[in-house]
């Protein structure tokens, strides 16, 4: 029996009859407000990721504090650190093991572009997580501050639901330290 002969759901049921738009929106809202990141620290950025989950920065205010050690229980991968050629297959496997829907945040310059370790003639660093993963949000910094990670997660929420839950702070209104 060939797979082509099986009718797909889209063709069998007319789209006008059944619509899950409202339900989908609700599901996405729930997902966006309870992102479960994978406990996956590579280098320096992992410490800032840990800091943002702990006292003071308290990531649980935004529903993203449930760090799961297993990829099968998590839905956002925060690539926190440098990926090198030896680690690359492992990162790929971890991403493939995560259930859909899933998102990727590239945290820090190393995950964005190789950061300080990318230079002509280098032999071991993968220059950016987006060379092999579909990255949704980029957070620059070396390492980014915990506030930046929180902002990145809010950006991801906006990407998932389509609107932003928290007001965006304009740079000119920020208190200059």
């Amino acid at each position, binding site marked *: 029996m060939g797979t082509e002969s099986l009718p797909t759901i889209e063709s069998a049921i007319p789209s006008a009859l059944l619509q899950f738009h409202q339900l989908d929106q609700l599901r996405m809202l729930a997902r966006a407000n309870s992102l479960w990141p994978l*406990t*996956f*620290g*590579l*280098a*320096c950025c*992992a*410490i*800032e990721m*840990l*800091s943002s989950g*702990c*006292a*003071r920065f308290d990531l649980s205010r935004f529903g993203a504090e449930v760090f799961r*050690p297993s990829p099968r229980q998590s839905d956002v991968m925060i690539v926190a*650190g*440098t990926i*090198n050629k*030896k*680690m690359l297959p*492992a990162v790929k496997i*971890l991403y493939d093991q995560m259930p859909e829907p899933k998102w990727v945040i590239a945290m820090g310059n190393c995950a964005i572009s190789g950061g*300080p*370790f990318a*230079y002509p*003639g*280098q*032999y*071991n*660093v993968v220059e950016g997580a987006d060379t092999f993963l579909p990255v949704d949000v980029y957070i620059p910094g*070396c*390492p980014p*501050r915990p506030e930046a990670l929180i902002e990145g997660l809010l950006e991801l929420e906006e990407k998932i639901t389509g609107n932003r839950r928290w007001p965006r702070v304009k740079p000119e209104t920020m208190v200059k330290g």
Partner: protein
Amino acid sequence: MSSLAQSQLRETFELNIGPQHPATHGVLRIKVVMDGEYIDRAEPILGYIHRMHEKMGENRTWNQFWPNMGRLDYLSAMAYNHCYAGLMERAAGIEVPERAEYIRVITAELNRIQSHLLGFGAYIMDLGGFTPLMYAMDEREQILDLLESVTGSRLTYCYFRFGGVYNDIDDDFITGTRAFLKRFRPQIPMYHKLVTGNAILMDRLIGVGPISADMCRKYGATGPVLRGSGVNYDIRRNEPYSVYPELDFDIPVYKECDSMARYMVRMDEMVQSCRIIENALNKLPEGPVMAEKVPKALKPPKGDYHYAVEAARGTFSMRTVSDGTNTSYRMRLRSPTYSNVSLFEEASRGMLLSDALAFLGSLDPVIPEMDR
């Protein structure tokens, strides 16, 4: 070793821990051959975060190598800064003003407390207790605030320069540091009350992972691992650098050789670091924080140079081979956890798997520093 492990009729199986595993503090991988619940052979496999620091030392100028020092051991970056500054000052013969040396010591010791705090919190988290991490991180954030006010970054400091430090500390930093010490001192007895006396913790740590002093010597283990095995060896005392000889502090040494001893060394070191900081703040002289006439393009004479400091995890030393140009011919970084973890294979033989992870945590590895 169990009687099962000694018998001839045994079946072993392989278990792979890592590279992504919450108990390995990063991307360390351990290939374990198990005999039931007991470890037959545990081989650490490194390289999952090898970032070519030694190669980078060869293809950039001496000054351009500074940022790398903050990214080796991101938890005690100041000590690494200190080593590189000391190395190049030795090579080029630069005199450092006294105030700069005091500032170096103050920031490096604050950094050491911060590192041990995170080590303490993460270690207890490995063993199953989550709350101490929250307490430790609360204190740690205050240190980071202080260091951020003078260095400009939270973790990956690049604060020292050849011949001094980047900028002077101000009164806010000094009063802030004093206030922090006043607040932090009573916290440590509280940690002991809360955590150290806990029966579960004592069961999991006392007698686990014995390392003899001779084994430490054979493997080149240093820092709290060596001092937890009863050897009074600390670069700050045995090979004095900077202004440490003028400061008043003790080296905590425990003779038990187990995980608990290593844990206690770290806890006591925080108290001693507080003493050093207070002492240095009292003695802080006035004056410049940068040496005069430090050439922009440093060209140390030909030859090789060696410098060692006491980082939070043990002896960090650098050896550089200079060929008289403005780049290094060979830059060798000797990181403490590299040697400390190398004894894991021998020491973990015949251990229970759960004990082995408690033992690994007591070595307090930072993986990017091991892989370099």
